[in-house]
C-alpha cells in the first residue's frame, strides 16, 4: 500500500490524504527534511524549535487540505505555510530563540551565487560571516536568498510562496545580493 503511495505525485497525495492519513504521512516525509532546513535557514532556530514549527505547520496543512488550490504546486503552498508559521513563531519567541549552528556548505552554495571566481577562494572563510549577515537581514531579503540559492526555487515558485509578483522576486533578489555583498565588503 505504502509503496503504491510513494509513486503518487504531491497533488494526488493531497487528494488521498483527505480520507487516508497514511497518504499524508508520505507527503510529510517528502518535505520534512527540506522544510526543517528552510525553517532553520531563515530563522536560525535550533533543531528542536524548527521541529516545533514544522509540527505546527503539518497540522495546519492537514486541517486546510481542502483549501489547497490545484493551480499551484503543493510544494509552493507548503513552503508558504511554513514560511508564515516560522515568521510568526520567530516574532512570538524572539527572546528565547538560540541561533543554531548550521551547515556552512549551504551558505557557501549561496555565496557562489553572488560572488565572482576570485572571491570564491575565500568562501569558506566567509561562510560564517554570510550566515550571520543573512540571519540579520530583513525577512524579505533573507527569504528570497534562501529560497533561490539554498532551496533552488524558481522565480514563479518564490512568487507563490511569498505571495509577491514574479517581477518583484528578481528585484528583491538583486537588492538582497547587493545588500549582502556590501555587508561582506565592510
Amino acid at each position: 500500500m505504502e509503496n503504491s503511495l510513494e509513486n503518487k505525485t504531491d497533488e494526488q497525495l493531497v487528494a488521498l490524504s483527505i480520507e487516508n492519513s497514511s497518504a499524508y504521512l508520505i507527503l510529510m516525509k517528502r518535505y520534512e527534511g527540506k522544510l526543517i532546513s528552510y525553517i532553520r535557514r531563515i530563522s536560525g532556530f535550533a533543531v528542536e524549535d524548527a521541529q516545533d514549527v514544522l509540527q505546527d505547520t503539518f497540522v495546519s496543512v492537514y486541517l486546510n487540505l481542502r483549501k489547497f488550490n490545484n493551480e499551484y504546486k503543493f510544494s509552493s503552498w507548503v513552503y508558504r505555510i511554513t514560511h508564515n508559521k516560522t515568521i510568526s513563531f520567530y516574532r512570538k519567541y524572539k527572546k528565547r530563540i538560540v541561533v543554531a549552528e548550521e551547515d556552512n556548505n549551504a551558505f557557501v552554495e549561496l555565496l557562489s551565487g553572488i560572488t565572482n571566481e576570485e572571491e570564491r577562494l575565500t568562501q569558506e572563510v566567509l561562510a560564517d560571516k554570510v550566515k550571520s549577515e543573512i540571519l540579520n537581514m530583513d525577512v524579505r531579503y533573507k527569504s528570497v536568498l534562501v529560497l533561490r540559492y539554498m532551496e533552488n526555487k524558481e522565480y514563479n515558485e518564490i512568487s507563490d510562496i511569498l505571495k509577491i509578483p514574479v517581477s518583484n522576486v528578481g528585484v528583491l533578489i538583486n537588492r538582497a545580493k547587493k545588500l549582502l555583498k556590501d555587508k561582506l565588503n565592510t
Partner: protein
Amino acid sequence: MSVSEDVLNKIKNDNVKPYSNLWVKFSKFASYLVLATGITMIIIAAGIAAYNVIESFSLVSMIIVPVLIAVIFAIFVFIILFQKIVKSDEFYKFARFKFAGFLLGLIIAGGIIWNVSGAAKAADIALQENRQYCETMKKAVYVKWSSPEEGYLAGEVQEKPVSPQTFTLKDLRRHIWTIQPLVEVNFIDRGNTVKLQGEITGPSVFRANHIDLWEGKMWFDLLDGYYSTPEIKQE
C-alpha cells in the same frame, strides 16, 4: 520518532479531520463579507459626508459636480490603494481574514478618534461658518442683479432675439421683462443667462445698453435654487 510520525500519531489519536468543504466555503465567504462591510462603510461614510456638504450649502448646482467627482476619485484612490496593499511585498504576512478585521477595526477606531478628538465638531463649526459666508455672498449677488431700478438686471432669455430686436427675460425673481437692447445681441440665444445694465423705460420694459452672458452658468443655478425656496422668497 520523526516529526511526520509524531504528527500522524497526533492526527490519529485526536481524531483530527481536515476542515469540511462547508467550513472552507463559509470561512472564505465570511472573510469577504467582513472585507465588503469595511469597504461599504467607507463608501457610505464618503457618500453621507458629500451629501451633508451639498445639503448644508445648498450648492446643488455649484458644487455637486466637483464633489461627486471628488467622491468617485476617492473611491478609485481607495480601490487602487487597497489593490496596492494586497499586492504589496508585505501583504503575504497577513491572512485575508486578519486583514479584513484589521481594516474594519481601523475604520471604527478612525470614527471614534474623529468624534472623541473634537475633529468632527471643529469640522461642523467650519462648515457652518462657511455656509454663512456663502449665503452672504449669494445674497449680495442676488440683490445687485435684481435691482432694475438701479440699472442692474439678470435672468434667463425666453426667446432668441429677432428683428425688431427685443426679447423677453425671466429675472431672478421669475418676473418677465421685455428687453430693448441698444447693443448687438447676435450672441444671445434662448435659455442663455445674461446680465444687463441699463434702465427701466416702462412697466416691465428694460432698455439695456450693456449685455453680458453670465460667466459660469452654475452661479445662476445657485441663485435660482437659493431664492426659489419659500422662506427666502418672503424676505
